[in-house]
């Protein structure tokens, strides 16, 4: 697994650069009839605030894996995030427009009330670009921090809190396995919209049985004494997925189950929930114009 991840780094970087996947800025809407625009997805306003974030990635101290530091994190600006995951029907519209690839056949669900599953990080970013073009608002994947903050009380601290010096590496493997097993639902069949209810921030189905892609890259960090970072290495071929437990998936994986390691618990499904950037001046101006002119 590790080998595969390393090998995929270069390819991933190239492809992501080519796709221009990150945080699209203002997008030109040229020659599209507004009637074809997708309905603006419902969003939830996440108010600014602060919380303790268990940093993503792997952390080493004295050459032994340790829990990631818990970092007091401020979310300065509020943001809007989709109330529901992108639906199968919405994703299908992107496919119909030729902007998204059809999801994995075995993962196809249909309808407005089913989440799109069987989608990779590439698919997720392609969808965000398409939706951005279609709606005139800027849509992007959340960062791990944004996702964790939006997940609120459903965000699971994945620290193992082991009382050991790390000389027995198996202790962490066993504890991780137990922890993830305890959190995973035995029934991964995608559920209809709203099945998992809303959290305290009114975000629906978050941390249900569909994990959501974030933009955050996998990192491995060596800690010096205390919590200071001594050195760290990113691997953006692997992205963080948010869910019942935090997952790390290669960017091209569409089925979390087969993207996992031999002895770990993999995400049940992979899906999409996007953050909506505040309207730019240009977009606000456009909205004032009669539809025909836009």
């Amino acid at each position, binding site marked *: 697994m590790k080998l595969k991840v390393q090998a995929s780094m270069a390819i991933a970087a190239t492809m992501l650069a080519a796709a221009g996947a990150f945080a699209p800025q203002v997008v030109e809407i040229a020659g599209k009839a507004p009637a074809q625009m997708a309905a603006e997805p419902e969003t939830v306003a996440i108010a600014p605030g602060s919380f303790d974030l268990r940093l993503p990635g792997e952390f080493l101290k004295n*050459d032994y894996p340790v829990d990631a530091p818990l970092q007091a994190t401020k979310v300065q600006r509020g943001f809007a995030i989709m109330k529901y995951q992108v639906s199968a029907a919405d994703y299908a519209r992107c496919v119909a427009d030729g902007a998204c690839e059809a999801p994995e*056949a075995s993962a196809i669900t249909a309808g407005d009330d089913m989440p799109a599953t069987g989608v990779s990080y590439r698919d997720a970013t392609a969808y965000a670009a398409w939706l951005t073009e279609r709606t005139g608002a800027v849509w992007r994947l959340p960062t791990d921090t944004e996702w964790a903050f939006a997940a609120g009380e459903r965000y699971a601290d994945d620290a193992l809190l082991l009382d050991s010096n790390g000389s027995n590496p*198996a202790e962490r493997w066993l504890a991780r396995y*137990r922890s993830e097993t305890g959190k995973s639902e*035995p029934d*991964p069949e995608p559920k209809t919209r709203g099945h998992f209810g809303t959290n305290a921030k009114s975000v629906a189905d978050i941390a249900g049985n569909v994990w959501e892609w974030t933009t955050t890259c996998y990192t491995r960090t060596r800690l010096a004494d205390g919590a200071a970072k001594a050195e760290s290495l990113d691997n953006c071929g692997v992205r963080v997925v948010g869910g019942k437990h935090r997952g790390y998936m290669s960017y091209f994986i569409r089925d979390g189950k087969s993207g996992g390691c031999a002895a770990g618990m993999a995400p049940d499904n992979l899906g999409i929930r996007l953050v909506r950037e505040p309207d730019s001046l240009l977009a606000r101006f456009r909205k004032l114009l009669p539809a025909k002119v836009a």
Partner: protein
Amino acid sequence: MLTRREALLGTAAGTAGAVLLAAMAATPALAQVPAADIKSLPRQKVNLVAPPFVHEHEQVATGGPKVVEFQLTVKEQPVVIDREGTTMRAMTYNGSIPAPMMIVHEGDYVELTLVNPETNEMPHNIDFHAATGALGGGALTHVNPGEQVVLRFKATRTGTFVYHCAPEGMIPWHVVSGMSGTIMVLPRDGLKDGNGKQLTYDKLFYIGENDFYVPRDENGKYKSYETLGESYEETLNVMRGLIPTHVVFNGKVGALTGDNALKAKVGDKVLIVHSQANRDTRPHLIGGHGDHVWEQGKFSNAPAKDLETWFIRGGSAGAAFYTFLQPGVYAYVNHNLIEAAELGATAHIMVEGEWNDDLMAQVSAPGPIRAI
């Protein structure tokens, strides 16, 4: 408790009888015991246990041969075979896939009551690879819904053996629908390493591997059927392609992972019995070995030593003896890794204990590449 041998020696049978009996004990396969004598043997009724566990048993037999009674009830039922909820019209013995393991000793008599409840659709029977004659018992055990039958056979050969349903014309369908299990016939003096050294296991893990062939609809989704009869033709079409849609341990993708992962401790001696009634497979314990392996499963042959992967022929069961030396989460897989990772043939074993740095250590943790 008086053994049969003691009981008979205590009678007026005399020296000739004693000599005959001694010969019988040495070569139980060859001696024919009069029916009256079988009737006088001690009887033991065993309640079968669902896999991956097995019923309580002695590894070294105390006392002489006995008649061991088992009951299997055929259950035709829909079963979920993967995490997506794919439902197969299954046929099972006692409701589990694989069917429960029976354990006896060489020279014992297996007395099986096979029950086919009238709620079932199909006739069934049973073919024991451990038995001699009548198609392994298949010709003597045909039961229609609403019938039962009792078969007795003598366990004359030691080893792990498959048993399965074998009704004329439909054998493979019954087998790949779940109707197979394992019987283990232990030598009366237990397992040996090939040099006469006793091998005693602390735990036995019973892994049954199945290949399933589930038809798909025009959208590629797995189909489910209201009845067995309706599922037959399309299932047969998939079977004839010889490419399984699922290859699983213990009846379902993930049946032996997560909450159902197997458990052991460093130092535990484990016998893993792996049974596949239809198709070849190649078990491998990632990060471990087979210390002593009976690939063909037959204990009269010396076990192979230190295997990395072992080969179980379709239609047989094999046994691997291993002592866990390191803690961790082990994956036990069919080392056709596509079948393990994509089709389901993976089990996990959680092993607790102290790490042995001498066997393995991470000398330098992953970090940036330094000048070499």
